[in-house]
Structures are given as C-alpha cells and as structure tokens.
C-alpha cells in the first residue's frame, strides 16, 4: 500500500523550497496586476461594429486628432461582441468605450430600466439648446428616444425602396409608374411569374417569406402598424397588423402566391437572386452597397422604385436598420469629459464631409436635412441603371415611419412572427385563402402575441413604477 501522508522536506516542511518560490511568484505577480497603476489614458476610444463606417470615419478622425488632444481611437468590434460588452457595461459597470456606435437592438437594451439607469448620457437638453433637433430628419431620432428623452445622435435614415430586375420588367414592357399599390404590384406583374406558359410559376415577384422578421417589420411599419403606440402601449393586435399578416400569408401560399425566399447575405440566396428566381427585393439605402459587392453580375440590371403603398396615396417607403452614436455615462467623470466627447460626436455625425463620404462609400443617406441639397446625391449610379438613387431615397426620407425604442421590440417581433407562422400553418392545413378569413384568424393569433408581450412588460417593475413602458 502507498502512504498518502505528505513527505517532509529536509528541514521538516512538507513544502519544498521550489514550491515556495512558485507560491511567492504567484502572489507577487497577482499583487502587481491588482495594484499596478493603470496610467493616464492619453486617448479616447470609440467602439463601432461596421468596417465601412470605420473606413469612412478615419480621415475625419485623423484630422481631429491632428488638431486636438486627446486623440480619438476607433475600435472595431464584432456585432455580438459589442452587444455583450455593452450589456455587461450597463448591467455590471464593466469598462466601456468613451463613445459607442450602437445598432437599434443594442441601444434598446439600455432602456429596460428606469430613466436614471439608462447607460447613455441624456443628450436632449443639448440637442435642443444647440438647435440640432431641427437639423435632423425627425423619424431618425425615434429609436434613440426613451420616455421623451434622446440618448444618441442618429447616423442615418434608412428609407426602403423596392429593387427590381429592370431587364426583366423592361423586356415585358412593364411601366413601374403604374404600380402604386401592392394590389397593382400583384395585378400588373403576375404574368411575369410563368415563363414557359405551363400555368405554373417559374419565378416569383417578391423576395419575402413568413420567417423573415426584417421584412415583416418593414411591411408592418410601412402600413402604419407596429408593436407599440406613441405612449408605449402594446398595439400588436391592431387591425393594421392583422391586415399585413393576412396579406403576407396570401403572398406566400395559395392562388395569390407571389413571394419566395432568397435570403440575404447567403450564397444560396444570392444565387437565387442572380438567377432571377425572385424579381424584386426590399432595398434600404445600405442594401445598395451589399448588392454591389455580393452580386456584381447584376450591375445595370437592377432599378429602384418606391414601395407600392398599402392604399392609394399612402406611404411609399418604410425603414430597416439604424445606428446611433452615444456617450456612455461611465465615460463622463466631469463636465469637461462630456464637452470633449460631445464636441467630437457633433464634429463626426454633423460633418458634411462624412455625409458625402458615407453616401459614396456605402450608399447611406445622412439624416442631416441641410446636406440633402448636395449634388453628390444626384449622381447617377451605374449599378442601378444610372438612377440618381440618393435623390430617390431623400425624396422618401420624410415619409419614413417613426419606430419605437422599446427594449421589448425584439421580443414583440418574435411573438408576431410566431403568430404569422401559426396563421401560415393553419392556412396550409385548411387551404382557405379568403382575405377576410385570413384577417380574422390573424387577429386571433396576434391577440395571443399581444397578451404575451404585455405580460412580459407588466412584470418590469422599473417601467411600471416610472409610469409606463418606453
């Protein structure tokens, strides 16, 4: 048998001198790490998630750094990494950058608690005092506002148009100006679906599917629906939402089917687009650059048109995506800190150079209204058959629907998508495609989604004690 007792060293200690050295080294290095002065920071950091943004900002930031101290340093993070770090900073006070460029979903997390717990500095008073509110397209503020306060400078407008296969439409002598509503869209374009005359569709008119949450939100917002009203109350079971859901189901199955799925950002989806399996897709301004890079073979074959309206004379656009620049509370230790960061934020986001560079490099239209008259937006774009797409997007920008900044928006969208899938499955089973019936069943499923989201929000004691949801 082996003894399990420790064998004493020569001096009687069970720990040899080598082990003592290791222990001392471990303790000394731990203490050094813990107490080492972090040193004075000689630069300010800015987190962002999009490489094209970083590339566009670099010349402006270099110029800023040449003239002023301290320097601004940009740090590019993956979207998920930025999300985690931001949430961690808000919830646990872990270090964050001095400026953060956040997407709508990331930023909304900051608004879950009471107003005094929002992780970004409230910019409302400065924005009003400096007249910035009137310089920016009003809907662009909406995703960064909570309970009437503004927590970020908007980066964009992101109006949505419909990108269509101009080569196919023009060969069939389709006049897109005659397509003013979704009903027109179905009626005028339906003959394009059957290419060999066998009565079966060989391609589809619209890139849309019942599981594409982005597309669902685009259509809901365009129709004037959505998940929360201006006072933050849940409105998921509204008749407008029921109408949109019913129409999406009718578009995806049955005799009125016009839609098919060619997912964005995937090789298979791009293949289907290139083959002309879908003839039109939703195009927010940022999507133009994505297509140019991913589908260069379609250059000159794509054109843009305003979205068909839900009813004659109504909104011809929607909104998809959004970014803001915010100053985390943790970065502001003194009024001077805030002034320094605020000056830079304004310099960057309200810069005309940035507005034109951003448009040239990524197709994104600035929310700063006074820059819209710049000739850059009138330049013809060869990819879009020489259309002046910037001017077209700007023409729609004032119509862009305002969105909620509710932290429950993602949850609401998921529940609405569940409702859509349930409606869709029921319709597949029953094969009853009558629109009135579809709307009635959509209302039924939306009511369930409505109750689930309302119950979740009801549990938030911070918001209920603050007098309502954001």
């Amino acid at each position, binding site marked *: 048998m082996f003894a399990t*007792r*420790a064998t*004493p060293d020569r001096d*009687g*200690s*069970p*720990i040899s001198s080598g082990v003592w050295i290791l*222990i001392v080294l471990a303790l000394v290095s731990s203490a050094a790490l813990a107490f080492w002065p972090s040193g004075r920071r000689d630069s300010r950091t800015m987190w962002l998630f999009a490489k094209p943004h970083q590339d566009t900002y670099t010349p402006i930031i270099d110029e800023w750094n040449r003239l002023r101290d301290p320097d601004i340093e940009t740090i590019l993070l993956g979207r998920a990494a930025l999300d*985690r770090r931001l*949430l961690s900073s*808000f*919830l*646990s*006070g872990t270090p964050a950058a001095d400026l953060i460029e956040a997407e709508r979903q990331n930023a909304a*997390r900051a608004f*879950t*608690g*009471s107003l005094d*717990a929002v992780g970004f500095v409230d910019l409302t008073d400065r924005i009003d005092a400096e007249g910035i509110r009137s310089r920016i397209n009003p809907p662009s503020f909406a995703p960064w506002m909570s309970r009437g306060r503004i927590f970020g400078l908007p980066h964009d407008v992101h109006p949505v148009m419909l990108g269509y296969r101009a080569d196919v439409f023009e060969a069939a002598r389709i006049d897109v100006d005659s397509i003013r509503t979704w009903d027109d869209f179905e009626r005028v374009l339906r003959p394009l679906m059957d290419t060999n005359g066998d009565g079966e569709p060989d391609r589809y008119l619209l890139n849309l599917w*019942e*599981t594409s*949450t982005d597309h669902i939100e685009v259509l809901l917002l365009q129709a004037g629906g959505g998940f929360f009203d201006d006072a933050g109350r849940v409105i998921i079971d509204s008749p407008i939402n029921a109408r949109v859901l019913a129409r999406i189901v009718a578009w995806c199955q049955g005799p009125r089917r016009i839609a*098919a*799925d060619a997912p964005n950002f995937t090789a*298979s989806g791009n*293949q*289907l687009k290139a083959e002309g*399996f879908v003839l039109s897709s939703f195009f927010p301004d940022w999507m133009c650059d994505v297509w140019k890079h991913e589908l260069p073979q379609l250059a000159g074959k794509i054109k843009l048109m305003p979205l068909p309206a839900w009813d004659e004379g109504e909104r011809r656009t929607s909104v998809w995506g959004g970014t803001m620049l915010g100053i985390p509370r943790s970065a502001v230790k003194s009024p001077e800190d805030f002034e320094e960061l605020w000056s830079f934020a304004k310099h960057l986001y309200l810069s005309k150079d940035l507005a034109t560079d951003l448009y040239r490099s990524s197709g994104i239209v600035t929310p700063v209204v006074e820059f819209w008259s710049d000739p850059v937006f009138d330049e013809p774009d060869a990819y879009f058959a020489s259309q002046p797409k910037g001017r077209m997007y700007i023409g729609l920008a004032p119509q862009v629907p305002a969105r909620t900044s509710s*932290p*429950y928006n*993602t*949850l609401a969208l*998921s529940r609405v*998508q*569940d409702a859509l*899938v*349930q409606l869709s*499955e029921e319709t597949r089973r029953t094969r009853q495609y009558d629109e009135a019936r579809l709307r009635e069943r959509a209302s039924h499923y939306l009511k369930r989604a409505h109750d*689930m989201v309302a*119950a*979740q929000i009801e*549990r*938030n*004691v*911070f918001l209920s004690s603050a007098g309502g949801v954001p």
Partner: protein
Amino acid sequence: MMGPAASSRLAPWLFLSPFLVIFVVFTLYPLARSVVLATHQTFGPEHEQYVGARNFAAMIADPLFWTALRNTFVFALASVFIQLPISLGLALLIERRGTPARPLWRILLFSPALVGVVFAAMIFGIILEKRTGLLNVMLHNLTAGAWNLDFAWTQQYVMSALIVASHWMFVGFNMIYFVAALQNVRRDLAEAAVIDGAGSIDRFRHVTLPAIRPVAGFVVLTSIIGSFQLFELPYLMLNQTAGPDNRGLTIVMYLYQVGFEVGDLGYASAIGWGLAVVLVVCTVVQRLLARREEAAV
C-alpha cells in the same frame, strides 16, 4: 515558525487553494447569487427590486417556458431511446468476433464528435436548406422533379432536424463508452452461457447487459443532462432564433433569450432553477429505476 504537524495540515489546503478560489468565485457565489436574483427584478447591480416568488409564478404561467420544456424533453427522450440504442448496437457490431478493421470503424464512427457543434450546425444547415439544400436537390432528382424544392426542413421538422444532427455527432461518441464497457464483459461468463445453450439475445440480456449496466447508467445520465443543456446546435442551425413558432426553443436557449436578449436576469435565474429542479427529478428517477433493476438482477 510553523511546526511540521501544522504544515502537514496546511499543505493540502494550500494546494487546493487555486481550485477553491476559482470554485467559490465562479461557481459557489454565482449559484448563491442566482438564488437571490430569482427573487428580484434587476437592472444592473444598483437597481434591484424584491419581487418574491413572482418570477417563479410567471415562469409557471409562461407558455414559452412549457414549450421550451416540452421541446427539451422530446430531444432528451430521443437521445435516450434512439441515440443510445444505436450507439450500443454499433458497439456490439464492432466488438463482435470477426468484425474486420475494428479500429478503423471506431475512428470513423467517432470522428463526427471531433467536428464540433458549430461546424455540425453549419453542415446540417446547408444540407437542409430550402431550394439549394443538398437533401432537397437530391430528393428532387431522385423523384424526377416531383419533390418540391421549397420544402423547408428546418421549418417543418425543426426538432427532427436537430435530433438527426445531434445523433450524427454523438452516436459515435457514446459508442466509445459502450465499446469500453463491452471489452470488460467477462469472456468466461459469455462462454459458459454458450455452453449452457443460451442464444444471442439471452446472452445479451443475462451476461452483457448486467456487465455494462454501470456504464449504461452513466451514459444515460450524461445524455439526459447534455440534452437539457442543448443550446448551440439549435441556436446556430436556426440562425440565432428559436425556429418558426419556437419549435426549436430549448430551456437553455429560453434562459439565454430572457437573460441576455431581454435583460431580465431575475427571470432567467428562476428558469435556471426550474431547469435544476427538472434535472434533479430526472436523476432521482433514473437512479431509482436503475436500483430497482439492479435489485431484480
């Protein structure tokens, strides 16, 4: 100076201290903290409000919690009643006398486990894709165009797709446990059974199964626990969603959504404890059943 006796007593603790510090900081404290969190609504460490058992009451009334629990149970049952018998069957085939190239079979069948969940999710995502997916294209060609290329496997059969992907990964992995167990079955007992005229089924029931029972019990338990921890595979295969109508929503995925997407850490902690209770119940039931069978043997 410390005496040799005192040093002897201190030494094990000194060596254990790195583990103890890590265990206390990263396991024990979070565990205790999650009990407190489960009774609070939180927004960061500075904003907490005691809500008593409201989080647990909300969990019981939450249809998504039950959907997640049902999905997870289905997956766990498939793991235990489909995956493990396949693993055992493969192990028996490989360990059978006369099977050629045994090491090669072991490596081949074990190799999917080396791929990693992320790659498996991507591979199956590509295979099951609509229109351009390998399976749809193959079925379309085999049926001379009768098969609808638009068939969405990961929408219509979410759980089946997840089960197939997970079986592909873990059948070989669990098979290795059974192979090890089979190699320890006493050969003399098996030979005695043959002499006594026992057939292959009787030999399996009365010789092999009792011998591998401890390993089988362990594999069943780890499979159940692993099934209840299912997260990465559906999360990646379903593009970071729970699939249409939450058909791929598992308990851990729901916990993640509530805690890190909605930011409701209190409710997420309550779900975590709900999961812990389910796992304890499953373990106790499994142990009781195993003991009863052992007693019967």
